[in-house]
């Protein structure tokens, strides 16, 4: 399977839809340990990315798609999510530079670059109760799956499962980065909203890939 321009656009639309459906839960999670706007930021960002990439021509290559998503997401959002996801997309674009379409391995490489971009931009380590706690295990799971011969859809499905588990685990953590990092013990018992939304994003990517694969 190769991943074409069209399926990347579809994927951004799928993620936007999933995030929109999840918006209120994400705001509520952020209300407990942050400022209650995470669902809004993610919805704004992915809607902007969806619209911007939808506006690209059929000849747009994956790098252009990712870069366009980065810019539109960033400008629509700002906040923490903006630079983090914008950097993710720019790194994904750089990782597959020059390729007109993506092989399964390319896609997973782009996916891993996203996770690394988020880590680099936020300078957060796993265990610091941020979206990195979803993205890092997700990237690792995807890498292992593809190394073990899985296709992109299965690799990202494995990543989604790892992200969900990672997000869940943030509940037990004290935050060291982001808005909730001043709460100390009071943050314990609450899932990090950015990790929760990462699980939603990656889950939607997996669903989208599965649908494209079977289509």
């Amino acid at each position, binding site marked *: 399977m190769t991943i074409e321009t069209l399926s990347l656009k579809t994927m951004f639309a799928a993620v936007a839809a999933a995030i929109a459906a999840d918006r*209120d839960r994400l*705001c509520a999670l952020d*209300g*407990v*340990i*942050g*400022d*209650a*706007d995470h*669902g*809004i*930021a993610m919805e*704004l960002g992915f809607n902007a990315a969806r619209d911007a990439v939808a506006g690209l021509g059929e000849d747009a290559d994956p790098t252009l798609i990712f870069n366009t998503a980065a810019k539109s997401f*960033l*400008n*629509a*959002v*700002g*906040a*923490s*999510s*903006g*630079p*983090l996801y914008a950097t993710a997309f720019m790194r994904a674009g750089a990782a597959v530079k020059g390729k007109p379409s993506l092989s399964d391995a390319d896609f997973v490489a782009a996916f891993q670059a996203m996770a690394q971009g988020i880590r680099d*931009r*936020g300078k957060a380590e796993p265990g610091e109760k941020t979206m990195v706690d979803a993205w890092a295990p997700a990237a690792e799971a995807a890498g292992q799956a593809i190394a073990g011969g899985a296709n992109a859809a299965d690799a990202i499905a494995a990543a989604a499962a790892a992200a969900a588990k990672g997000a869940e685990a943030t509940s037990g953590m004290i935050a060291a*980065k*982001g*808005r*909730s*990092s*001043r*709460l100390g013990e*009071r943050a314990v018992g609450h899932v990090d909203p950015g990790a929760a939304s990462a699980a939603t994003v990656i889950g939607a990517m997996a669903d989208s890939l599965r649908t494209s694969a079977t289509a």
Partner: protein
Amino acid sequence: MKTKKLINDGAHAVDEMLVGVLAAHGRHLYAVEGTPRAIVAKDGPRRGKVGLVIGGGSGHEPAFLGFVGKGLADACAVGNVFASPPPDPIIECAKAASGDAGVLFMYGNYAGDVMNFDMAAEMLAMDDIEARTVLTTDDVASAPLDQKQKRRGVAGNFFIFKAAGAACDRMLSFDECERIARKANDHTYTMGVALAPCSLPQTLRPNFDIGADEMEIGMGIHGEPGVQRGTLQPADEVVDEMLDRILVEMSPSRGDKVAVLVNSLGSTPLMELYIMNRRLAQRLSDIGVDVHATWVGNYCTSLEMAGASITLHHLDGELQAMLDHPCDCAMFRAG
């Protein structure tokens, strides 16, 4: 149950607000062409002057754009509600503010703001504009003293920006402006208390829960949890609790001078703020601290949140001169 607001579509609240701001304050402010979220002082930026760019999320009005004007900030990058602006408007602000003597970025220490302003600084470097950053970290409640660099910036912004703005307006060197900005931050201490939540225009839902008889000491200006939740106490006790925490750190000597800000987080009215100021002034007088100037009102809000903050700005001769330096902004005048 939804909260009630006099808005149209919540998704357009910030942009519509900015149109209203420019309509009201066209004498002081303009937006960079094509970048409506980059608000610049008509009288301010000039050759040889260090440019002062501030910014942050919306919902704190009159912070931050109300402090743009001659003698204070040159430009303000405006984000979504409670969200840092993205790099683009920050970059446009820096270009508009730049007088080829360097640009100072000053904003509250939040992960989102740091990432966006840092990205902007990186991109400006490519255009040969040097941007240096001084984060405000005046919220005493948000980390222990030995981790002051982790603290949030809250209402004390007011004094910190004021000092930096004066230094820039006096055409001091980039190094001097930066030094004074850092010093002002080191000399500024804020403690807040929240009684009731605000709600975001996009959700119209209270953005945190708090019991009918509770208050939260140290809550952040976006509703981030504070240091302690307890039963609402009489104003004097609340002030004492906040002031004690500040004094421990500030440890003033008799005869020291301070400037005071008693700030509403939104819906707490002036009557309550002045009742608080009464206690504050008495306590400071009791320990021989001289109040050089006092501001009371809405200076750094959280939409309609109920609550207040107290800021002490510990003056020396230099900071006092900066404070007394005149400024003329859309929503604030002094000196």
